[in-house]
C-alpha cells in the first residue's frame, strides 16, 4: 500500500471512529476524573497520534481501544507535568485504576449529558456543551448555529467545563426520584439543538442542517440508553415528525408553505412511520409527558392532512392537556387556533387574549399572525391588517415574511 493510500485509510478510519465513538471516549475518560476539558484534549492528541501512526503501522484491529490507551497516557503525562503545582498522586491513581482492558468501553455518554444539562450549569449553555462534549463539534460551528461570536461561545464552554470539574458535578445518571426533572433538562437541550437546526428550513446552510441530524442522533441515543423512560421516545417522535415534513415546507422557489397547504406526498413516509412507532412505544410505558403530547399533536395533524378528515376536537384536547402541563404561552397561541376550528373565531380571539396577558408574548411573531388570522375571520379587517403588520415586522425568515405579506394583501 502506498503512503498516500495508507494516509487516506488512516484518516477515514479515524473519521469513522470519531463519528461513532467520540462522545463515548470522552465520557469514559472524564467519568473518573470529572475533567471534561482534559479528556477532550487527551483524545484530540490521541487522534493526532493516530493520523501519524496508522498510515505507517496500519490501522489497529480495535481503533477505539488504541485511541483510549493513547489518550489515557496523554492524560497521565499532562498530570505528571503539573505535579509541581499539586499533589497529583491521587489523580494518577484514579486514572490508573481505569486501565482495565479496553475491548469493551462502557457507554457513559448519558452520564456526560446529565452533567452538561445539570441545573448548576446555565441553561443557555447546556445544548452547546452537549454538542461539544458528546459530539466533538468545535466552538465555531456551535457559535454559528446559536448566533453567538466564536470567542464568546468558546469562553462560555470553557467556563462550563471548569464548573463541572471544580464543583464536582457528577457524570452519572441521577437517582430514580430525581430522574424525571433532570431528564427534562437533557431533553430540552436536545430539542434546543434540533430547533437551531430547524431554524433554516431550506437547509441551505450546511452547518445548521447538520444540527437536526445531530439532535436526532442524540434523541435516538437517549431513547436507547433509557429504554424504560417514555419522554425520550416522545421527543424522538416529535423531531422525526418535524423532520419528515422538511421538504414540503418550501416550494421549489423557496416560498413558505403552511401545514394545511403542504403536499403529503412530499413528506418522508419512512420517518413518519418511525415517529409513530416511537410514540406508540412511549405510550405503552404509561406516563404522559410534554414531548409525547407534542408528538401526538404532530401525529394528529399528519392524520388530518393525509386523510382529509377534520379532527379538531381531538387536537384541542391535546392542546388543553399540553397547556395544563406546561402553562406555555406559545402553546396557548396554537391552542387558540384550534379553538377557532371547533368554536369559531370569536371564541378563539378570547382564548388568544387570555394568553397574551403575559406581555413578553407581544414580541412574538406567531401571536400577531394568529391574531391577524382570527381577526380577519371575524371581519375586523382594519384590526387584522394592524396585527399582520406587527407579525411582518417581527419575522426574521424572509420566506415567512413574504408569506405574511401575501396573507395581509389577500
Amino acid at each position, binding site marked *: 500500500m502506498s503512503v498516500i493510500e495508507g494516509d487516506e485509510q488512516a484518516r477515514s478510519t479515524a473519521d469513522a471512529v470519531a463519528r461513532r465513538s467520540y462522545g463515548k471516549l470522552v465520557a469514559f475518560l472524564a467519568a473518573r476524573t470529572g*475533567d471534561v476539558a482534559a479528556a477532550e484534549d487527551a483524545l484530540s492528541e490521541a487522534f493526532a497520534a493516530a493520523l501519524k501512526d496508522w498510515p505507517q503501522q496500519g490501522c489497529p484491529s480495535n481503533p477505539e481501544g488504541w485511541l483510549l490507551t493513547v489518550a489515557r497516557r496523554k492524560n497521565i503525562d499532562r*498530570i505528571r507535568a*503539573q505535579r509541581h*503545582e*499539586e*499533589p497529583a498522586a*491521587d*489523580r494518577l491513581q484514579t486514572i490508573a485504576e481505569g486501565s482495565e482492558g479496553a475491548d469493551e468501553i462502557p457507554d457513559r455518554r448519558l452520564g456526560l449529558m446529565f452533567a452538561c444539562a*445539570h441545573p*448548576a450549569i446555565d441553561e443557555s449553555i447546556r445544548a452547546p456543551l452537549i454538542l461539544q462534549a458528546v459530539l466533538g463539534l468545535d466552538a465555531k460551528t456551535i457559535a454559528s448555529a446559536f448566533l453567538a461570536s466564536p470567542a464568546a461561545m468558546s469562553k462560555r464552554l470553557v467556563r462550563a467545563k471548569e464548573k463541572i*470539574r*471544580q*464543583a*464536582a*458535578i*457528577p457524570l452519572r445518571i*441521577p437517582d430514580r426520584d*430525581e430522574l424525571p426533572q433532570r431528564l427534562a433538562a437533557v431533553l430540552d437541550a436536545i430539542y434546543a439543538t434540533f430547533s437551531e437546526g430547524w431554524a433554516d428550513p431550506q437547509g441551505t446552510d450546511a452547518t445548521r442542517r447538520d444540527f437536526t441530524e445531530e439532535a436526532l442522533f442524540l434523541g435516538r441515543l437517549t431513547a436507547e440508553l433509557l429504554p424504560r423512560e417514555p419522554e425520550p421516545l416522545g421527543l424522538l417522535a416529535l423531531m422525526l415528525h418535524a423532520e419528515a415534513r422538511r421538504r414540503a415546507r418550501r416550494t421549489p422557489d423557496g416560498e413558505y408553505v403552511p401545514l394545511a397547504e403542504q403536499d403529503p406526498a412530499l413528506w418522508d413516509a419512512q420517518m413518519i412511520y418511525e415517529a409513530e412507532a416511537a410514540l406508540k412505544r412511549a405510550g405503552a410505558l404509561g406516563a404522559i409527558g410534554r414531548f409525547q403530547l407534542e408528538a401526538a399533536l404532530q401525529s394528529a395533524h399528519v392524520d388530518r392532512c393525509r386523510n382529509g378528515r377534520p379532527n379538531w376536537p381531538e387536537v384541542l384536547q391535546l392542546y388543553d392537556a399540553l397547556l395544563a402541563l406546561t402553562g406555555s404561552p406559545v402553546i396557548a397561541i396554537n391552542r387558540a387556533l384550534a379553538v377557532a376550528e371547533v368554536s369559531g373565531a370569536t371564541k378563539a380571539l378570547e382564548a388568544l387574549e387570555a394568553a397574551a396577558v403575559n406581555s413578553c408574548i407581544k414580541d412574538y411573531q406567531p401571536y400577531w399572525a394568529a391574531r391577524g388570522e382570527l381577526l380577519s375571520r371575524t371581519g375586523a379587517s382594519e384590526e387584522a391588517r394592524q396585527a399582520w403588520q406587527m407579525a411582518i415586522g417581527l419575522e426574521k425568515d424572509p420566506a415567512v415574511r413574504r408569506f405574511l405579506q401575501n396573507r395581509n394583501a389577500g
Partner: protein
Amino acid sequence: MQYILMAYVDEAQWPKMTKAQQEQGMAAYMAYTSALNEAGVLKGSNRLQPVATATTVRIANDKPQVLDGPYVDSKEQLGGYFLIDVPDLDAALSWAARCPAAGHGAVEVRPIWGMAAAA
C-alpha cells in the same frame, strides 16, 4: 470534596419573631446540624452575629482602611455556614435544600479550593 453552604437570610426578621417562633427556628437548625453530624459529613459550622457587628478592612494607599459595616449591603445577609464533605455537587445540593435557610432565605453552595481541585 468539601463544600461550604452559606446561609443568607434577612436578619431583620429574627427580632420580629415571637419567642415560640424563634425557638422553633433554632430547633430546626439544631436538627439540621445533628442530621449532618449523624451522616458524618459535617466538618464545621457557625452562626454569625448580625451585620451590625461587621467591620470591613482593605488596604488603600498602602494604609489599612477600616470601615464600619459589611462588605456587601444586601437584603439578605450571610448568617452562618456549614462546611461539609460529600462525594459530589449533587450530594452537596441535596444537603443545601434541607438547610432551614433555603426555606426563608437562600443557600449558596461553593466548593472549597482543596488540593484536588487546584489544577
